[in-house]
């Protein structure tokens, strides 16, 4: 049953997986809440590990959630579920020589789809911040350090153009220094 739920969730997600992995967080989160697969804290950690690993964030998250809920078979089922739609869609597009990126209907669809993908990512950031109590106004050491870590991370990504993986690793070291 768990395996079927995993397969179903990630298979459907594979068909709407536009705009990169972070846009898929709300879909994964909806399924995690619905089936009670793990705590919010664990889910947050899973996304962090997915971001640290090579490979697509969405697939990595699927694999980790599959592993947490049903062991190695869960991981394999989730990976296959998220890959199958890509395989099917790419082969279809390639076999029929469909020039999707110059197709007027696809262009029109993407006109609305891209802003929605942006909303999904903003929503994911909001949900994450809320779930981990990052949006509060209690001035404490914890809160101030959080704001500084957030600001520095964003600075490193936007201005210094660091690879997100390095930001995660450095942030982990900062966390060990500050909070343990």
């Amino acid at each position, binding site marked *: 049953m768990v395996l079927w739920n995993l397969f179903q969730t990630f298979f459907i997600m594979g068909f709407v997986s536009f705009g990169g992995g972070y846009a898929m967080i709300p879909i994964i989160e909806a399924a995690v809440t619905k089936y009670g697969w793990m705590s919010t804290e664990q889910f947050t950690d899973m996304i962090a590990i997915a971001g640290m690993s090579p*490979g697509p964030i969405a697939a990595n998250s699927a694999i980790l959630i599959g592993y947490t809920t049903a062991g190695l078979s869960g991981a394999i089922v989730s990976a296959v579920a998220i890959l199958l739609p890509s395989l099917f869609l790419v082969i279809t597009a390639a076999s029929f020589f469909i020039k999707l990126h110059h197709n007027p209907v696809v262009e029109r669809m993407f006109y609305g*789809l891209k802003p*929605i993908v942006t909303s999904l990512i903003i929503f994911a950031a909001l949900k994450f911040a809320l779930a*981990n109590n990052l949006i509060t106004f209690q001035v404490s050491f914890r809160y101030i350090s959080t704001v500084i870590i957030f600001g520095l*991370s964003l600075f490193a990504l936007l201005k210094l153009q660091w690879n*997100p993986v390095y930001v995660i690793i450095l942030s982990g070291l900062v966390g060990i220094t500050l909070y343990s």
Partner: protein
Amino acid sequence: MKVKGLLVLQIFWTFFKISPVTFGGGFAMVPLIIKEIVEKRKWLTNDEFTDVIALSQTVPGAVAVNSATFIGHRIGGIRGAVAAMIGVSLPAFFIVISFGIFYFNIQDNQKLEAAFTSITVSIVAIIVFAAIKVAKTAIYDKTTFFIMIAGVPLLFFIHPIIVIFLGAITGIIVTSFGRKLNHCIELNNNKEEDLTTNPDYFMGSGI
């Protein structure tokens, strides 16, 4: 089309080798694909490669997986596509599973907990960064801005998959009024050049 087993193996191995460098974004793979597939093995020309990247972004799914599958299909048919997909996914699968196992074994460690407290904050920053990157290509007039703003509160009440479909339908409806479509296509064309010449552009969001 008859495909030799050797070719299928070659396809598998080529993507298997490239895959572990996709740390931090599928587009990190682009220079390596050019080197291996276009320059060394001459399986694709540069123009074909540009097409592959464009198509891989349009089809749902990860850019790295889609482009590998598409290239595999070009070279070796369906068997080639499957070989490339497995090749590009396997190393990532093993690495993420190892990280997962490592995490579960030392989950209650105080230091790890402290590290993740800070990492969570950085993940929010990374997601905000991804939103900014996507917004740069997605938001270019009042209508797209409005769709983005309207989408966020909607997501608190409606399942994300339904919201995605609503977005696509809105796009089709809105573009049937006025000349927005021309504008949209123009912008897309400009961006294609951006993406192939500057793969870093989508770093952290195109994955």
